[in-house]
């Protein structure tokens, strides 16, 4: 019996190589135009940038043209995403919709919603957030208790979601809501996905400032919020069947190993062209890990293109990737201690700024989108252990 997961090498087709150059020159122009500062746009919310990306056809790239997509391959999409992330472009306003919400609507949404919402995601006009976690439902997503109760022409939502990234900037949320109690046989039963307009009456959004001082996540209160029947996504009570597909997209992407890339770039800058053997060895180790993660991530894009649902493989990439990117700042710190060099050519400030930022965001990397413990459970199931 073989328990190995396979990540076949991907030979990027010529159209991917051309596209990569096209994305790079677009980003160069945007940096020159001052749309975002190089290596500093990741946290910036910019719909203007999203619309430019949308106009290029780089949001919803794999979706059918009738819904605003470009019918391009998963590998082409992969190339665009990794170039955006490596350059820390301000993708925040559209990345969730592109990666998760759009594909869910495309797969399970009602036709009218698909026709009206998807083209607006693809044009960069809509920002989405994901309503999963609740005060008493974190890793245990199927314990969600925020209720949707049937009413005339729709549903009434009451309860609370938490740790919702970007809710304060979002136009829509896809929420996982309780429509029936769980059953004895299936503890995942009874939850339903809905599309919720974030501007609906009855919604209150309270910011939660994270430990790095940034406002990313939020707490959301629902008080008799009306959601029309049209916004029901998929089958009532059966969301557990839909959720796992969504995660293959979320879990393997370049954002699962490029979050702290800037600290490595700045270390290389600080090391200069002829570093000590110790520095060179330290840099080499990280580059080997990063390159391997990239191979595996691209391989998953290839599997998606081939119509597979590589759920376990995606968990493997996310577990390896987030552990690596999380521990990277600490290794960089020890390779390049602070110096007293105050010459203008010194790159100490850039390095220290990247180190500070990546050290502060590191704790979340093995928590968001499925904790390390949850991922290892998924991998263990893939190995036949549970």
């Amino acid at each position, binding site marked *: 019996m073989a328990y190995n997961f396979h990540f076949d090498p991907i030979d990027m087709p010529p159209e991917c190589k051309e596209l990569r150059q096209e994305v790079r020159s677009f980003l160069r122009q945007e940096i020159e135009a001052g749309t975002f500062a190089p290596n500093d746009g990741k946290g910036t919310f910019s719909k203007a940038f999203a619309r430019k990306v949308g106009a290029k056809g780089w949001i919803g790239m794999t979706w059918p043209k009738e819904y605003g997509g470009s019918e391009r391959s998963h590998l082409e999409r992969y190339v665009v995403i990794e170039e955006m992330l490596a350059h820390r472009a301000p993708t925040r306003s559209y990345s969730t919709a592109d990666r998760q919400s759009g594909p869910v609507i495309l797969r399970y949404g009602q036709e009218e919603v698909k026709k009206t919402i998807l083209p607006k995601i693809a044009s960069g006009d809509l920002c989405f957030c994901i309503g999963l976690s609740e005060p008493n439902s974190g890793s245990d997503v199927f314990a969600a208790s925020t209720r949707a109760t049937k009413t005339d022409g729709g549903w009434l939502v009451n309860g609370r979601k938490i740790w919702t990234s970007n809710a304060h900037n979002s136009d829509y949320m896809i929420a996982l809501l309780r429509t029936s109690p769980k059953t004895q046989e299936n503890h995942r039963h009874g939850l339903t996905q809905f599309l919720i307009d974030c501007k609906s009456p009855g919604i209150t959004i309270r910011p939660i400032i994270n430990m790095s001082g940034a406002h990313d996540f939020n707490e959301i209160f629902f008080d008799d919020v009306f959601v029309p029947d049209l916004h029901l996504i998929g089958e009532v009570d059966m969301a557990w069947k839909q959720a796992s597909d969504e995660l293959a997209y979320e879990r393997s992407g370049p954002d699962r190993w490029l979050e702290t890339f800037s600290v490595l770039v700045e270390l290389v800058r600080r090391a200069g062209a002829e570093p000590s053997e110790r520095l060179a060895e*330290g*840099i080499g180790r990280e580059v080997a890990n990063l390159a391997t993660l990239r191979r595996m991530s691209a391989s998953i894009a290839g599997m998606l293109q081939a119509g597979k649902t590589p759920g376990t493989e995606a968990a493997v990439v996310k577990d390896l990737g987030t552990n690596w990117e999380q521990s990277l700042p600490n290794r960089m710190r020890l390779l390049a201690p602070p110096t007293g060099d105050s010459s203008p050519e010194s790159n100490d400030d850039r390095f220290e700024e990247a180190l500070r930022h990546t050290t502060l965001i590191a704790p979340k990397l093995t928590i968001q989108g499925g904790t390390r413990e949850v991922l290892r459970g998924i991998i263990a199931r893939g190995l036949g252990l*549970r």
Partner: protein
Amino acid sequence: MTDNIIVDTATRIFADLCEPNTINDAEKGTWPKALWDALEESGLPLTWVPDTLGGAGAEMTDGFAVLRAAGRAAAPVPLAETLLAGWLLAQGNIEAPAGPMAIAPIYEDGHINLAGNKLQGRARHVPYARNAQHIAVLAFSGDTPTVALVAADAVAISQGTSLAGEPRDTITFDGATAVAVGAAHGLGTLGIVQIGATARAQQMAGALEHILDQSVQWSLDRVQFGRAIAKFQAVQHNLATLAGEVAAAGAAADAAAEAIAVHGIGSDVTSAEVAIAKLRVGEAAGAGAAIAHQVHGAMGFTYEHSLHHATRRLWAWREEFGNEAQWATRLGHMVAARGADALWPFLTQGS
């Protein structure tokens, strides 16, 4: 890497003729004749020799896939070495002889001189030198690299073993006469070390796949506290971590094999991918073997259990054709020389 008839043949031969006892006997000095003869009869050792030079003329990736299978089986024969020797001889346009071969040098700082057709110098840790009928050497006449073929009985061999119990001998050439020489066309010692490192990376990736299978199976069979230890979350998470390391090793090793097949030795892409592979696979070997042993408990620490066939090889192979630190340093200098803003283009070169 897709399965094909060459790999299937190799896998079948290993399944039939490479038992745990074969491996233990080989460590005690018994040449696994049946295993080697079957391999030779199938033509596998000459996978990388073009048909014009007496070989099978198969793809580079086929040979690497065979080595993956050999690593999975801990095959105690110089299959990698004979493949590498055949490849080296082909670079010098020299016909490959029958029988097991060894290759020298295996380290980048190894240096063997050639004057006329007389070899001079010493090569350390040469795998399977004592079992080889011929040795393929990359030697230098002044600065000119030359491929030389020398009969094993023409050189002095002093025996040594790796920590896996595999022959790692010292060859003293002492003026031995080469039976054939050929221009190496710019191939340097680094080139030998690169293809050798990729061969080892494939074997190691195979050995890692094997210890994952073995560890998962053991955890399902072994009962403690009234249930299979596979049911304990701590054990599950260790095995999940092992599976990640195994997957990373396989991906890295395949990337290097692919680079050699597509871009050849000497290209920038190959130089990067080989360094990445030997380093990343070496890291996975250390972390992976440790988990496999932890899962197996005391049983895995016995000579009787076969786990050490793979884990000892993993530890030994890490050192051959450059270890993690050496490849990391080389890779780090490659990156630094290009500069910070070229790091991302470097990572995406060729794609």
